[in-house]
């Protein structure tokens, strides 16, 4: 009768010549030396050395994995319903692009897939019809050359390809994600150039964060961005030529948010320039701009409803120019701490209408007017505004033009000696007995 394995840990060292009791209960006592026991165990456990492994794998219905040495091998081998799981960080150094198969899911499993190559390849490309899901990790493209045509970390290149994401993208040398495809959501992208470029009119970009050091944080060329955040140190936080909903743009150097054709419920903040810019002929509802430059800036023909512009260093709201169609400001708030609250230019035939807007100038200066109207072809309507100045020499409404101004129903605070300082008010009509009044 020798030692039993159960003697461990009280007996921590077994010598090769120690007899080991290897009998099972109810059987005749059987023993072998410790050296014989080790040899026997090694022979029976030798299958462990041949257990398959790989950087990624696909599990079958029983949870048994088939392993692959490259991600593309796994994608090619898998079916459209498979989930491919990474088990280690992967760095590719050849000029290859991983092309996903429709319907497959990529579980990055906390790891990073990186393409480190000076060529033009994208790290990932999605160019087939279908839904794709990538989650739980990082995709990086490094050492490429910045381009809006290639060298992306992820390229969605089919208008019927939809990507549901929950992953992080990095490209310190170029663009993070380029979307010429379908709907995309759930990506955080940190890049040198735009973190995300959206370029499909019918596509939607949802719930993404997009950062850049040297270009727009988020660039919406075509499509709708919803619930997105764009940040840039070196250019606009968000630059749009299409639609934005519930978006926040922050720039440390230029426009916080440069709006497109339509913007709803958006916010632009700039540490050095204009907070929010309304594009010519655009529709802007419930948009706010806060800037060191103008808080809110609007171009000709834009419609600005429920707007706010606040500036710490320049104009609260700046109406850049007018066109042949009217430019409208309704239900707004304009405030400046160092200049005129609301500055509007009319230099064409379209009316410039400022209606039901609070204009507040905090600068204690005789040039610190609440509402300043100017231009070579004045066609202004200033109606039912609340105007406030800090200096008695400033005016509630000031204009340096002759003619073209209808001012009615405005309320000015007690401070200015001359509340309305315009050459002539074109309003001559008077209200009827019901207080209705026709402009004219």
């Amino acid at each position, binding site marked *: 009768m020798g030692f039993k394995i159960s003697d461990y840990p009280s007996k921590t060292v077994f010598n090769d010549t120690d007899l080991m009791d290897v009998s099972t209960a109810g059987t005749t006592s059987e023993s072998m030396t410790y050296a014989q026991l080790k040899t026997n165990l090694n022979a029976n456990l030798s299958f462990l050395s041949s257990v398959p492994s790989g950087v990624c794998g696909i599990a079958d219905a029983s949870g048994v994995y088939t392993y692959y040495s490259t991600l593309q091998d796994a994608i090619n081998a898998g079916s459209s319903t498979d989930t491919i799981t990474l088990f280690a960080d992967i760095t590719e150094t050849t000029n290859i692009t991983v092309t996903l198969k429709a319907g497959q899911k990529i579980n990055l499993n906390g790891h990073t897939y990186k393409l480190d190559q000076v060529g033009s390849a994208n790290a990932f490309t999605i160019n087939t019809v279908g839904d794709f899901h990538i989650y739980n990790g990082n995709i990086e493209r490094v050492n490429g050359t910045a381009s809006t045509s290639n060298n992306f970390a992820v390229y969605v290149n089919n208008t019927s390809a939809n990507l549901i994401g929950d992953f992080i993208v990095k490209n310190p040398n170029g663009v993070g994600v380029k979307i010429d495809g379908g709907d995309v959501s759930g990506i955080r992208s940190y890049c040198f150039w735009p973190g995300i470029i959206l370029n499909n009119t019918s596509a939607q970009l949802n719930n993404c964060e997009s*950062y850049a050091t*040297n270009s727009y944080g988020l660039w919406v060329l075509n499509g709708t961005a919803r619930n997105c955040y764009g940040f840039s140190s070196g*250019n606009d936080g968000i630059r749009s030529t299409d639609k934005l909903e519930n978006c926040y743009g922050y720039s440390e*150097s*230029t426009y916080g948010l440069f709006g497109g054709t339509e913007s709803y419920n958006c916010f632009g903040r700039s540490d050095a320039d204009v907070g929010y810019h309304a594009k010519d002929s655009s529709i802007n509802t419930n948009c706010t701009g806060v800037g060191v430059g103008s808080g809110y800036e609007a171009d000709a023909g834009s419609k600005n409803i429920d707007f706010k512009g606040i500036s710490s260093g320049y104009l609260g709201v700046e109406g850049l120019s007018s066109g042949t169609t009217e430019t409208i400001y309704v239900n707004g708030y304009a405030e400046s701490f160092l200049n005129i609250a609301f500055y509007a230019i009319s230099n064409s035939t379209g009316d410039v209408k400022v209606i039901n807007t609070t204009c507040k100038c905090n600068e204690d200066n005789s040039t610190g007017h609440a509402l300043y109207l100017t231009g070579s072809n004045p066609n202004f309507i200033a109606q039912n505004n609340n105007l406030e100045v800090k200096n008695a020499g400033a005016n509630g409404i000031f204009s340096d033009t002759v003619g073209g101004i209808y001012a009615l129903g405005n309320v000015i605070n007690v401070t200015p000696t001359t509340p309305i300082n315009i050459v002539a008010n074109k309003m001559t009509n008077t209200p009827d007995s019901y207080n209705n009044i026709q402009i004219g």
Partner: protein
Amino acid sequence: MALIYKQTVTQNEKTSPLPMDERLIVQYFDDVAEEDKQNIVNYDDLTAEEQATFDAYKALCESKMV
């Protein structure tokens, strides 16, 4: 062609949310193209003389922090 200077933004190096070297962003208006433009110049790309000027300007700015 006239390039009309508007402003310069100077930025310290930082690591969050993105790594970025110390640099200056010169913003100007191109009256031929009729558009705003900017040029981003990293501190490390300046000549020694230019870096000395930048350092002096930065010291001026820091002296105005109250």
